[in-house]
């Protein structure tokens, strides 16, 4: 077809030729904009737009939906569609909620505006990497050679193989690597614990579960041990009330933590709040909030915090009455009866046990922050009320990362900044546990036959059966199978690109070739998918019915209707598991797995999905969350926003009304009762001892270790802004705004003869990658920053030309399960090897960085 003909057809189809514009009177007459900002007496002149065909929003069908990924927040997307095609996306503009109108954006009910990733969803939906048909591998694993097969063939293959593996190798043969790639729907859910895959494999009777969370296991552990819950977060609007916000390794300008956190922080700034950033990088958060930047050596945060605690204790700046009332083990006076003779936190800090007072000077030698700055910050934090120490997850993704988070909780407690508006007890920072599951979550959910630390699967596969339980963090079981090493022979990826995202990719490559079944369920062909035997095309969240929850801050529900029909032969995860259940176990398994459906569900799922969601809304959401909106009204509006009399603050009830904390003692456990009573660490999922009070522990690699002779740089791999982990890596709009590059300090670069834009090798003994350099004064000397999530692109020598930091990370988690993503030493040099981002080089971002003062 000629281009002209194609265009004409398109014009005709969209009924949007220039002529039709001329004929049609504009759909919406000029209205006075909300707030009276613009008053326009438009003449409705027939002028062409700069580009045709040009469908206006009001000529398209509007459907409210939301983003769906594991990103840090959950925002509204509004699809503007023509028939079955989404023409463009907009976001919340205040019109859709009850009582809403265009431009409504109050502090109580702020708009849920999507970030750059959300705005680029159309590129992901309609991408060339979109998986549309079931595929079977015909080449080697990783080679990327597949042939198209029918659903019937694909599901039969998987079902037969599953039965064979279970019969041959037992109930631990399949490892569940479902993750949050499609999470936070309530019906179509991929997740380690609440996921559809977990229930399916559990019912089937063959599942090794992956228990540690890559992003924040250190933090989760700390929050559970200290507060007894991970719901230690305030709502985002509480940040507007702080007088001091310490962003510890926290970069909300990149991670968009919570729906509108960054916006409320701006409000705090306007009210006079001071900001501090402790981070190896001067981030965009630091500049936007005009923060005092304290550069710190990676993986030494707990030491600096100990130094702060020392200053606070020795200068009597702590809140003794708060400690006495609410804390266990903070000092000698708050030790429980049963723990007499055990160490308390204050005496540890003062050096009573090891003869080493944790003074600011002591800390300075470790963390590289001048003692006077540690003292100044400790002073500020102890004397400014209320003050929010936001202990982010990144410093917890380290060797002994849990100690950093536990230490932060001790600081938060000793200054009495917990349970008060403007304070902060985060941690994990989850503010609200919405009703999260609309599919049957019952006795069959999360059944597992062994559970391992998530990044130890390759180690387990490669060394089976000569593996000690502590090496893989085996979760204890109450039956005779306790301690049995799982015999992993297959992997299921559901909403997960873990092969690309876990640590030490070279070791994973070695391990995956030992497996007999690798199944990848995704809507995109990911790097993981290239290593799969079977690719199953999964409908995106635009193509299935669901409801969105805030990710962990924000109080609202967003309806997610089926905006368009599933593309190609895509099916939902629930359809796939239901059909597999029928194929493996007939009606008994099929109906138990999906009780509202019959076998037609694989072809017709709308009514069943609607029934699950309606039931969830009417029996859980309305009664438990006191929502006063019917399911039908919710569907019609697309969004329900809660309003509160006062901002939600974690532990307010405990502090104001004396309610118990959810810990064994009912107190904030600086001394963790549970840990203090463990005698045989090997029989716990931790495997190795964890101190029962927060302590500084030297990591296995850091800028202080002798290993720097060989590998002088400390590599950190934070979350990027232009991807959600590995998702969106293939979107050209996003790739145009940023580039995968390693950030290094200008003085380091000078020594190495590297300039911005030069291609460099980043390597250590575990692996190597090739990436352009970005040279800046905004990064601490000795530190290299390489954002996680880029899709690996291996050359014939196994060198990653795309620049994925997980070629270099170590698959050895911290005892509490924290992935040690940021505990990595490396070396850097200029190279002749070519960087291959995987697509044409699009980034122009650096053309827009100016250093005119140099």
């Amino acid at each position, binding site marked *: 077809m000629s281009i002209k003909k194609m265009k004409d057809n398109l014009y005709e189809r969209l009924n949007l030729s220039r002529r039709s514009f001329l004929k049609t009177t504009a759909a919406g007459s000029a209205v006075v904009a909300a707030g009276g900002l613009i008053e326009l007496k438009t003449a409705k002149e027939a002028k062409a737009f700069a580009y045709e065909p040009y469908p206006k929003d009001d000529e398209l069908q509007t459907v409210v939906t939301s983003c769906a990924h594991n990103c840090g927040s959950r925002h509204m997307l509004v699809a503007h569609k023509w028939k079955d095609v989404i023409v463009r996306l907009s976001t919340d503009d205040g019109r859709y909620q009850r009582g809403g109108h265009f431009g409504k954006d109050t502090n109580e009910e702020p708009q849920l505006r999507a970030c750059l990733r959300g705005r680029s969803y159309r590129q992901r939906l309609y991408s060339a990497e979109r998986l549309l048909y079931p595929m079977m591998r015909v080449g080697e694993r990783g080679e990327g050679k597949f042939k198209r097969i029918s659903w019937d063939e694909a599901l039969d293959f998987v079902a037969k193989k599953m039965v064979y593996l279970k019969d041959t190798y037992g109930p631990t043969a399949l490892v569940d690597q479902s993750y949050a790639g499609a999470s936070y729907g309530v019906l179509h859910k991929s997740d380690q614990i609440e996921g559809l895959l977990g229930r399916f494999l559990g019912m089937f009777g063959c599942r090794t579960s992956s228990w540690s969370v890559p992003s924040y296991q250190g933090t989760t552990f700390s929050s559970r041990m200290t507060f007894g819950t991970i719901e230690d977060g305030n709502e985002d609007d509480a940040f507007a009330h702080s007088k001091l916000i310490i962003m510890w390794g926290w970069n909300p300008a990149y991670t968009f933590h919570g729906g509108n956190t960054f916006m409320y922080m701006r409000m705090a700034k306007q009210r006079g709040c001071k900001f501090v950033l402790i981070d190896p990088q001067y981030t965009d958060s630091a500049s936007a909030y005009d923060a005092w930047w304290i550069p710190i050596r990676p993986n030494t945060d707990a030491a600096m915090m100990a130094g702060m605690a020392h200053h606070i204790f020795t200068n009597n700046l702590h809140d003794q009455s708060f400690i006495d009332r609410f804390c266990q083990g903070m000092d000698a006076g708050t030790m429980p009866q049963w723990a007499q003779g055990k160490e308390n936190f204050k005496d540890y800090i003062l050096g009573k046990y090891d003869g080493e007072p944790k003074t600011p000077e002591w800390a300075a030698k470790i963390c590289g922050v001048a003692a006077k700055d540690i003292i100044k910050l400790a002073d500020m934090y102890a004397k400014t009320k209320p003050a929010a120490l936001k202990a982010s997850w990144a410093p917890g993704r380290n060797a002994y990362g849990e100690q950093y988070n536990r230490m932060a909780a001790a600081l938060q407690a000793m200054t009495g900044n917990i349970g008060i508006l403007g304070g902060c007890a985060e941690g994990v920072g989850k503010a609200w546990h919405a009703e999260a599951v609309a599919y049957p979550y019952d006795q069959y959910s999360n059944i597992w036959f062994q559970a391992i630390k998530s990044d130890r699967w390759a180690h387990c596969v490669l060394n089976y059966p000569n593996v000690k339980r502590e090496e893989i963090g085996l979760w204890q079981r109450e039956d005779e199978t306790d301690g049995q090493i799982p015999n992993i022979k297959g992997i299921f990826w559901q909403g997960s690109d873990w092969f690309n995202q876990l640590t030490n990719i070279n070791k994973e490559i070695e391990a995956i070739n030992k497996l007999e079944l690798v199944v990848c369920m995704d809507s995109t062909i990911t790097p993981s998918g290239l290593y799969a035997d079977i690719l199953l095309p999964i409908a995106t969240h635009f193509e299935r019915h669901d409801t969105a929850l805030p990710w962990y801050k924000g109080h609202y529900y967003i309806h997610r209707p089926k905006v368009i029909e599933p593309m190609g032969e895509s099916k939902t995860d629930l359809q796939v598991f239901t059909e597999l259940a029928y194929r493996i176990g007939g009606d008994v398994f099929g109906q138990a797995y999906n009780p509202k459906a019959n076998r037609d569900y694989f072809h017709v799922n709308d009514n069943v999905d609607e029934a699950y969601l309606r039931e969830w809304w009417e029996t859980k959401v309305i009664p438990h969350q006191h929502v006063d909106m019917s399911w039908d009204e919710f569907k019609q509006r697309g969004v329900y926003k809660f309003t509160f009399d006062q901002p939600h603050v974690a532990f307010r009830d405990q502090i104001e009304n004396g309610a118990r904390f959810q810990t064994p003692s009912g107190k904030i456990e600086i001394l963790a009762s549970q840990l203090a009573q463990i005698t045989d660490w090997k029989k716990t999922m931790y495997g190795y001892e964890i101190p029962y009070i927060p302590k500084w522990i030297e990591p296995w690699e850091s800028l202080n270790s002798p290993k720097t002779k060989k590998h002088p740089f400390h590599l950190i791999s934070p979350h990027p802004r232009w991807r959600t982990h590995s998702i969106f890596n293939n979107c050209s709009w996003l790739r145009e705004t940023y580039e995968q590059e390693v950030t290094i300090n200008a003085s380091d670069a000078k020594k190495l003869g590297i300039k911005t834009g030069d291609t460099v090798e980043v390597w250590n003994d575990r692996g190597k990658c090739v990436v352009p350099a970005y040279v800046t004064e905004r990064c601490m000397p000795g530190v290299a920053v390489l954002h996680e999530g880029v899709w690996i692109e291996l050359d014939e020598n196994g060198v990653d030309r795309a620049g994925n930091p997980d070629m270099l990370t170590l698959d050895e988690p911290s005892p509490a399960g924290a992935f040690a993503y940021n505990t990595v030493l490396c070396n850097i040099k200029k190279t002749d090897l070519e960087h291959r981002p995987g697509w044409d080089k699009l980034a122009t971002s650096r053309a*827009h960085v100016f250093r005119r003062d140099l």
Partner: protein
Amino acid sequence: MSESKDKAKIKEAVKRRKRETYTPVKPDLQLGFVHNNVDCIGCRACEIACKDKNGLAAGPRFRRVQYIEGGRYPDVFAYKVNMSCNHCESPACLPTCPTGAIFKRKQDGIVDIDSTLCIGCRRCEAACPFGAPQFDPSDSIVKKCNMCVDEIEAGRKPYCVMACMMRVLDIGPIDKIWAGELETVAVGPNDQISRQVKNMSDIELTKPSIGFVAHSKGKVK
């Protein structure tokens, strides 16, 4: 984009262009942008919203968030200057257009390109001191921000403004913006408006319709 250009129409437009070249349209009301260089987190949601709205592939960027950084470790600073088309009082692009495709709207001062007239010669691109006109190789014509006239005519604001997560980008009558009289959360209670900041061309060239909250290191004079 049109396959064949209407010659009569071009003639008519060239006549109009000759009339307008030396006497730019005096709009009844001039709309313009306001951006807070300090509070902007540089997330570029505005850029992506713009690309989606206008159906652009990678390449042409109507809106461009510039990252400016300076200082020496550890005393560093950074800020953002965010610009699309400034819908200037005397647009440099307009008189360069040989076909009269560029026009300035009387009612709101928005500068737009009539794509049925544009022949893709890219003279406007060279003339603009702010880099607003963007050549789109897929259609072989120049395109640029038209402040989402369709949204404005529907009583709403442009996509970039409605995309701003920090609420630091807004539009309004430019006189009000410069006078600090526009009611907008883009400008904080203690913020002053600057017409000229560092890292942008001299505003005397075209008198761009834009105001900024400047960073202390980005102030001129």
